[in-house]
């Protein structure tokens, strides 16, 4: 147990370095630029202590649970040898973690207001709600599909840049014909889909798969799942905008 406490203490101290830039920058702008006193300095200091503790406990949990879990899943699926179930898992993980993501719900609601203000859809609450829900499911499906394609790429060992470059060309082409109001939303939706718990799990899964499959390099083949999950939603939302806006 003392070893556990020492490890945790070291992590808490390590987070000092992670948070130092924030403290320095906030202090600089408050003192030198805005020249205003900060109210409730004590409360802010207490909050920072919570941030440090939380970050340290999270990183410990990451190494104890999320990384080993992602890797053991990769190993178990490889041993099972069923492509169907691996793909079903990849899709389920992508879809399930995205559909209830709070950041995505917020973006979808905002998108509905933009489109209503634009006159692309009706302004009543029911229309906006169904628009936001449809958009949310579109993004969730796109993340599910991303992980399916990404995992399949790892199995095959295909170079990632063909996929990503083709994906970008697709995005550029579809942007040209998409309604203007959807473009900003579409581009942002790629960034909000990957949450703090999904990222370590998906990364460990990819690296784990690349390590257990013969002839794959974990560095070259294992990374890249997140890249798919932030590219494909852009394409799907742009197409959603074309279909619904037309």
């Amino acid at each position, binding site marked *: 147990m003392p070893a556990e406490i020492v490890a945790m203490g070291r992590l808490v101290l390590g987070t000092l370095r992670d948070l130092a830039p924030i403290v320095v920058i906030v202090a600089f*702008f408050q003192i030198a630029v*805005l020249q205003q006193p900060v109210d409730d300095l004590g409360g802010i200091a207490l909050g920072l202590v919570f941030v440090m503790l939380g970050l340290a406990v*999270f990183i410990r949990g990451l190494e104890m649970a999320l990384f080993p879990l992602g890797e053991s899943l990769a190993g178990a699926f490889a041993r099972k040898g069923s492509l169907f179930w691996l793909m079903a898992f990849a899709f389920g993980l992508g879809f399930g*973690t995205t559909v209830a993501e709070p950041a995505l719900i917020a973006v979808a609601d905002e998108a509905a207001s933009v489109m209503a203000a634009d006159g692309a859809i009706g302004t009543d609450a029911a229309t906006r709600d169904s628009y936001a829900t449809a958009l949310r499911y579109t993004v969730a499906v796109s993340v599910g599909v991303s992980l399916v394609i990404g995992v399949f790429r790892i199995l095959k060992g295909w170079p990632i840049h063909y996929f990503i470059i083709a994906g970008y060309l697709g995005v550029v082409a579809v942007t040209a014909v998409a309604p203007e109001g959807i473009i900003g939303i579409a581009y942002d939706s790629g*960034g909000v889909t990957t949450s*703090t718990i999904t990222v370590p799990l998906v990364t460990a899964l990819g690296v784990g798969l690349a390590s257990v499959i013969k002839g794959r390099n974990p560095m070259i083949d294992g990374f890249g799942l997140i890249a798919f999950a932030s590219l494909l939603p852009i394409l799907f939302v742009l197409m959603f905008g074309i279909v619904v806006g037309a």
Partner: protein
Amino acid sequence: MMQATLLQLFDLLAQTLFDVAPIAAILVGFQVGVLRQKVPQLRKVLVGSAYVVIGLTLFLFGLEKALFPLGKTMAKQLTDPAFISGGKALSSLVWSDYYWTYLFAFAIGFATTIAEPSLIAVSLKAQQVSGGAVGAWGLRLAVAFGVALSLAVGTFRIVTGTPLYLYMIAGYIVVVIQTLYTPRMIVPLAYDSGGVTTSTVTVPLVAALGLGLASTVPGRSPLLDGFGLIALASLFPMITVMGYAQIGAYVSQRKQRSKQKYGGGQDPLQAESTAEGLTP
């Protein structure tokens, strides 16, 4: 006061559990229904999962207590026309009057990215997988620099009202060209780093900045122009991470070349660092 704090803490715990629920359901479902295997070291995994939930809850609680209110107030103040104009007429403001806004966007983008938990996770994994060839800290600095640049450019875009897609397409072109010349090992990681940068810490502050700016700059609509900062923040890190690898490759190539040129013996420092880099 004490009670309100505890209530807020429980609220956040419930919210985190709610976010984790679908992931847990899928993991348990596949483990029990499809794989039908025991999870190795189940106890450790369960304790670690509890750590993840508790850690995220404390982290969010601290952010909401300390960083978010302060950061959002600062974003509002630094985009406030009264602050920017310094007494000049509003209509006479040009893009260069917003220099404090750009600088703040740059600085806050850098600082929040360094504290981003999902980036910490990916960089730890990258360091482990590459056997130390990719340093966790160097990768995080490169990504943070990319986010910082993207927010400075993104706020400039909102102030000038230029269309987002021009920036995105130009960025994509740079990414494609860099991909051709970058060490192959870094490419997938660089692509990934675009997606991991924007989550818990960065998004709320960036949204406050974008919305604040779009609602105060004359002629901008918060609905149409407030978007797009996150998109740029997922694009620029790809460029800086590949750039970081390219600079690293260039430096080691030059070292190699100068060593050949002078025909000297092996530099002991260099030998040591390569040996270290190879240890798994």
